[in-house]
């Protein structure tokens, strides 16, 4: 029995009915609109949007994912009573969370560029990697949220843990790395630093986007640092691989947790 399609359809309808997705679209569109108006729609706009994407999308994914698991709890229990493959059920729940959220984020980011007629051509080329990283981070943070929510039954504690994860990834991790870099000092530490950065998906996304953007000449220097450590093409591939691992591993862990969990 193929249950994935109807389940997915149900989750999607639920999600798109909720008003908060409209809120996501509007917030991102408004931010983009303001940035285009004040920064003139040049490279600076994209560089500023990088910040928005790196900070906002993981938070949205974590919160939405945790809420979704607990929200869909009764439905899940109901469906588990049926002869349904748990793996399919999980896939349905996960995609039903990620697809609407990623759509809302992409629509919100693209909209202002579309109505300023900036989407096609050079700006579009610069926006594309940003969208890819945004979608990637949404998928990753949702997977992590599922893992957290499946492990912690209490709603409030789960949400707290999710936000804690965000705080670590978005802020504290970089503090630790900075401390490390300053302590080690002038010795060449690019390679170990990149390795530690790779342990944080937000950092991976950030370095990837910085490498691709030419908002400031300094980024050429950052690029040179990465090149020095890994070589440009190899470096970029390694970063993309790290990001992919960050999607696959938590998803696998969450699937396992879902399969073993007694609801």
């Amino acid at each position, binding site marked *: 029995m193929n249950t994935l399609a109807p389940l997915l359809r149900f989750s999607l309808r639920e999600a798109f009915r909720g008003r908060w997705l409209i809120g996501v679209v509007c917030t991102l569109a408004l931010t983009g609109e303001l940035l285009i108006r004040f920064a003139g729609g040049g490279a600076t706009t994209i560089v500023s949007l990088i910040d928005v994407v790196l900070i906002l999308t993981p938070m949205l994914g974590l919160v939405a994912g945790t809420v979704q698991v607990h929200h869909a709890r009764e439905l899940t229990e109901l469906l588990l009573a049926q002869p349904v493959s748990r793996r399919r059920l999980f896939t349905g729940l996960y995609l039903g969370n990620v697809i609407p959220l990623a759509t809302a984020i992409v629509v919100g980011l693209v909209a202002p560029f579309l109505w300023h007629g900036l989407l096609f051509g050079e700006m579009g080329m610069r926006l594309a990697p940003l969208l890819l990283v945004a979608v990637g981070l949404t998928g990753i943070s949702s997977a992590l949220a599922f893992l957290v929510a499946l492990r912690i039954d209490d709603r409030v504690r789960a949400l707290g843990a999710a936000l804690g994860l965000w705080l670590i990834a978005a802020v504290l991790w970089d503090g630790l790395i900075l401390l490390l870099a300053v302590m080690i000092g002038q010795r060449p530490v690019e390679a170990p630093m990149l390795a530690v950065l790779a342990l944080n998906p937000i950092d991976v996304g950030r370095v990837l986007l910085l490498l691709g953007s030419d908002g400031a*000449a300094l980024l050429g220097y950052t690029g040179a640092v990465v090149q020095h450590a890994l070589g440009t093409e190899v470096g970029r591939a390694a970063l993309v691989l790290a990001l992919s691992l960050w999607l696959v591993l938590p998803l696998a862990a969450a699937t396992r947790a879902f399969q073993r969990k007694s609801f």
Partner: protein
Amino acid sequence: MMLSLAVLLIAGDTTVVSPAGPYRTIAAAVAATPAGGTVLVRSGRYREPLIVLNRAVTIHGEHGAIIDGEGQHALMVIRADEVTVQGLTFTATGGSFTEDRAALRAENAHHCRILDNRFEETFFAVYLAGTVACEVGGNRIAGTMGRVEAAMGNGVHSWSSREADIHDNIITGHRDGIYLEFNRLANVRNNRSEHNYRYGMHFMYSDSSHYTGNTFAANGGGVAVMYTKVVTMERNTFADNGGPTSYGLLLKEIADAQLIGNLFRRNTTGLLADGADRVIATGNRFEENGWGLRLLGSTSGGTISGNLFRRNSFDVAVNGAGTSTDFTGNWWESYHGWDLDRDGRGDVPHHPVRLFAMLVEHAQASLLLQRSLFVRLLDAAERVLPVLTPANVIDARPLMRAPKEGV
């Protein structure tokens, strides 16, 4: 054009060189021309040994007059005063590891004029050695960008000369676009030096000189001014000099330099000062550089005022405890102050050095954390309560409005 040629023909003793004769080589024509005469070079390709100009002649090339060294030797040398070489095309000197082989060399000559020539695939294009008041203007110089620095010569090379006037040349594909060593009273203006391997211009031991209105773009490094006193640099553009160690302008071990109305854009470091004393910088624009202005410890006594700093990742970086350079009345895009008494100056001082800039000075790898939220929080905290950033690098009276374009 025809008229000017006619004037030339009437003006004095003119010898005509053409592949059809009577004179088939430029050397023979020069030998037949008295001092003060003119050699008119008709269109054609001339292959002959080194041409020596040992009397005051004017060599005037028609369009398509090409001197070809066939990759074997230098082409022309000026050994007399008042020589003019105009309108010729010099090509294919070939490289040399044992001599400074130049297409056109002037030795110990006064008042030579090298105008409107083309230099293609030459090792050194123009080489002034011990000259006085020579003019090098309007030439188009395109080297063959080699892979090895040692296998490349400079575009315009001026050694131990006085009053060299180098203007309106376009120079690409050489080791250094323009190279001045042991010069006095040099004047370099309105040149474009782009896509050269090492520097757009290299300026060493050259006192009392100024350069104005030049563009140095996309070179290995923009301009290096070293071991020099009293240099004025005005309205030049230093752009797109990128790479991990690259800069728009390097001032090293110099004193009493003036920087007025220059533009530094999209360089890894706009202006790097190392051991620069009493540098006065006004009306310059630092835009979209990695580091706008970088002062190393031994720099002192300078004045930085009326400049514009916009969209640099770091406007100013200093190493060590700071510098005695005086920052007053610049415009900073990153300034967050206000102007209640409406005198056009901010009421709270601006600290142009970010904490993160200091950390990067200390550990360059932390540059990987550029644009991280944590670093922003640190910077914000430092702005409220400065602890680590140098207290003496401070603009007490920052401008509220950006100064106008140019000066």
